[in-house]
C-alpha cells in the first residue's frame, strides 16, 4: 500500500485517497468552439508514460482536498506532491 503525502495532512495510507488520472488537463474554456476531434482528444486521450508523470489525487477519507503529484509509474515512487495552486515541479525523478 502506497504512502501518500497529502500537502495538507501529511503522509497517509493509499486507501484514504481516490486516484484522479492525469493532472493539468484543464477543462476547455469554450467546449463548443472545439472540433469533434479536439473534444474527443480532451475527453478520452491521456498520456501513458513509463517514468515520472503528473497525476491528481483526492484525499477522500481525509481533508477532501484535491492535489497533484509527480509519481514514477515504473517504481510507484512519489517524487513530489503539491497543491493545486502551486507550480508543478520538474519531471526529473
Amino acid at each position: 500500500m502506497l504512502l501518500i503525502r497529502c500537502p495538507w495532512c501529511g503522509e497517509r495510507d493509499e486507501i484514504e485517497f481516490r486516484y484522479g488520472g492525469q493532472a493539468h488537463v484543464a477543462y476547455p474554456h469554450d467546449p463548443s468552439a472545439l472540433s469533434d476531434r479536439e473534444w474527443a482528444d480532451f475527453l478520452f486521450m491521456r498520456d501513458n508514460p513509463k517514468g515520472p508523470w503528473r497525476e491528481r489525487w483526492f484525499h477522500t477519507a481525509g481533508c477532501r482536498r484535491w492535489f497533484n503529484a509527480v509519481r514514477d509509474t515504473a517504481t510507484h515512487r512519489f517524487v513530489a506532491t503539491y497543491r493545486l495552486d502551486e507550480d508543478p515541479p520538474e519531471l526529473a525523478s
Partner: protein
Amino acid sequence: MTSRRVDGWGVVDRATPVPFTFDGGAFEGRAGDTLASALLANGVGVVAPSPIEGRPRGVFSAGVEEPNAFVELTAPWFEPIVPATMVDLVRGLSAHGRPGVGRLPLDPPPTRPADHRHAHVETLVVGGGGAGLAAAADAASRGDRVIVAHDRAWWGGALPDGDATTTAERLACEDDVTMLASTTALGVYDDGYVILHERTTAADRIWHVRARRVVLATGAIERPIAFADGDRPGVMLAGAVRVYLERFGVLCGERAVVFTTNHWAYGTARALRDAGADVVAIVDVAPGGPTGQAARADGFEVLDGWAVAAVDGDRRVEAAVLVAPDGTERRVEADLVAVSGGWHPNSHLYRAIGGGLRYDEALAGWVPTGDAPDRLEVVGTATGEGLPTSVPYAFTPAEDLTRHYVDLQRDQTVADVVASVETGLRSVEHVKRRTYIGTAIDQGRTSGALTAAIVNDALGEALGAQGPTNARPPAVPVSYAALAGRDRGALLDPARTTPIHDWHVDHGAVFENVGQWKRPWSFPRDGEDLDAAVFRECRAVRESVGVLDASTLGTIDVTGPDAATFLDRMYTNRMSTLAVGRIRYGLMLGLDGMVMDDGVAMRVTDDRFLVTTTTGGASTVLDRFEEWLQTEWPDLRVYCTSVTEQWGTVAVGGPRARDVVAAAGCDVDLSADAFPFMAWRDGTVAGVPTRIARVSFTGELSYELHVDGRHVAHVWETVMRAGAPFGITPYGTEAMHVLRAEKGYVIVGQDTDGTVTPDDLGMSWIVRRDDSDFVGRRSLSRPDTSRPDRKQLVGLLPIDRDLRLPEGAHLVDGRAATEVDDAASPARPVPTLGHVTSSYRSAALGRTFALAMIRDGRARLGSTVHAATASGAAPCEVVAPVFWDPEDRRRDG
C-alpha cells in the same frame, strides 16, 4: 519408520507430555514440539498421500518450505490446511493428513478468533534468527520503535541457539520493542507496508505495519536433489534431519545415507553418528575437499563423485542405490537419505516486492542483488553470506527421469520439465504454467531453483541463465478466517438505517440493501408473498394513500453567492432561474454526455439550494461537486455539505395524501392553488418544524415531509395514525419502483447504464438550448451521441398479459423471431435490439409491463419485438414509456 527420541538431544521439555491425535490415533509429544517433530518421534512415516498420484509422503523439511506433510487441524481450532512443520504442538490438538489440498466442510468447527492491529515503527525486522536479532538490537539502541516478527515459537535459527534466546529476552524488556514469535510476514508492500500473521494459542492476529525500514533476515533454504523415487518417506533435507535431532531430540533414521553437494551436510552426518545412528555413507557429488578428508579420517565412508540414483521401498526408504562416477551401482540398506543440494537465501518476500536476484556461482544459487527496493534491507544468510559453497547439481542423471520428483506438491518430475521445454517453452514462467510447478501451497520453495536449473540445462544455456519464477504474497498460506478477523456477519460492512428503521422491523418489513442502506423492500402481511404485498401496496397508493420512508435520498446543501451559477454548470437545465420556494427536477451528465445522476433542487434562499441525489449516488455526486469546485472553478464561492443524515423524509402519496397530511396536524395551506406542484413550504406537521415538498415519484398527489432526523420517527407514526381512517399503507422500494415505472420515470443505474444520453431517455426537454455550457454538453453533439439509431427508452406490453419479462432479457426484431425460416429474415445470429431494464406486474394496469432500451426505439412504437426468455420468444408490443396518467391529471389530487 524408525524415528525415535534420543536421550541427551534436543531442547524440548521432556517432562511435559502433550497428548494429541493424528488421523484418529492417539499420540504423545513433548512441550516444544512441532506436529512434524512429534509425528517423527512417534515413528509416523507417511503423513499424507501426494495430491495427484497418491504416493505416500512424509515429512521432508523442518520449516516453511515443506512440500509434503500437510494437515487439516480440527482441534483446538479448525485450519483447512497447514504444513505440520509449522504447527506448534498443543494439548488436545487433532490433525488429519491432507493431500496438499484443503477442504472446507459446510459446517466447519470453530476457527481461532482473529483480530487486526495497526502499528507504525521505524524498524521492522522479519526473521528472529541471529542476524535479525542483531539488526533489532542495533535499531533499538538508536531509539527506534522496533517490531521483530519471527515465524517460529522459539528465538534464533532452526538449530538451538542460547545466545539468540538471551538477546531476544533482553530485547523484549526494552521500551518500544515488540517481539512477535510465531508470526509470519505474509507480504511486503510499497513504502514499508508489511502484513504479519501472528498465531497465539488464543487468537490469530493480522498486523498491518508501516515501517520506515524493513529488515529482511529471512535466512536460507536448502535445495533438494532429484533422483528416482526421491519423494519416499525417509528422504529428507539434510538440514532438517539435523534440526529434528538437535532441537527436538528426534533421530529420523537408524541407517542413514547423506547425499550432498556441499560441506554443511557433513554436520548432519556427524550429528547422526553422535546420536547413535549408523551413517552408511556420505555421498558427495563434488571432488573431496578438506571436509571430506576430515570425515574420512574420522571413519566415515565418503564417496567422492558418487550420487544417489534411487531409493527402494514404498511407504518408507529401505535401501539406497548409489552410483559411482563410472556408472557402477551399489545398493545399501538405509532408512534415511539426508539430501543437500546446496543453500540459497529465502528470498520470497524480497522478490514479491520487486527485488532482483543474481546467480551466485559459488552457491550455485540465486541471491538478492545489492540494490534492494525502497526501505528494504537484507541481512544475514538471506543475502547469501555465510552459506556453503556448492557445486551445481539438480538431479542425478538417468535414462528414465519420470520418477525424479521436482515439485512434490504437484507430483511433477524432471521428465515433466524436460517435456515442457521440448514442446517449445523457453521461459521458466511458461514451464511453471504448463506443469503447475511452484503453484502449490509451498510456492515452489524447494522446487523453484531445481526447475530453473533443469530448464537452463535442457535449453543448453548457462547456469543461472534463468532463475526461479516470480514470488507473490501471501508468502505462506493464511486462512480467510484470519484475514476476515471480526469483519464477519453484521460487522462485515456498516449498515445504515433510517430513524424509522425500528418501526419497519416491528411491522414486518423485508429489507433490501441499497448501497449500505437498509431500505424496506415491502411490508408483507401474514400469509402474503412478496408479489401480493407489492401489488397491495401499489393499489393503495393509486386508490387511497401510501407512505414511504425516503430518508435515504442523498441530500446536499449547496450554499454560497455562486451556488446558482455552479448548479447551472452541473445540471442540464437551469437552476439559476428557479424561484425561492420552488423545486426543479434535474439531470446530471458525465463529461461524456451520459446520464450520471438525477434528483431535485429546492431553492431555499437566493444563495442556498438543497439538492437531492439517488440513494446510491450521494457520495459520488458530492465528490463530483467538490472536484469541479476545487480543480476547475476555484473562483466560485460555493460550499457543499452532505446533510443526508440530518434530514428524515416521510413521503405521503395518493389521492388522499392531502387529507392525511392535514389530519397529521399541518399548519400550511395544502390546497393546489396555494401550494402548487414542485413547490415547497415551511411549516409544522405533528408539532415538528417541517419542510413540505410537493414532488412526486409515483404520479399521485404527494407531499414529502422533510424534518430533523431526530423527529422523523415521531412524524411517521403521527402520519400513520392520521392516515388510519384512509387505510394508509406503508410501502417499500419495490412498490415505489413499480409506481414510478408506470409513469415512465427512469431509475438512474437501472434503466441507464452509463451509456445513455438524455435524448436516449426521451428527455431532451430537460436539456437547455441556450448557449451556456454545462458538464457533458459538448459530448451530446459528438457523432456517436447524436446518431439516429441509438438505443432509446420504450415501454413494452407483453402480448401474454400475465407474463412478467425477466429484467435483462434481450429483445430481437419481431420478424427475426417469428419468421426464421423466411429467406428474407436476418442471418443468424439474430442481432439484439436491446434489453428489458425494468419489468413489473401492475395493479393499476391489470397486467404486466416493462421498460426497455432498444435500438431506434421511438421509431418502433406500435411494432412487435420478441423477448428471449427461458420458455421461448415472448412477443411484446412496443409502446411509449408512460403507462399511467400521461396527462399528469392526478398529481394535484
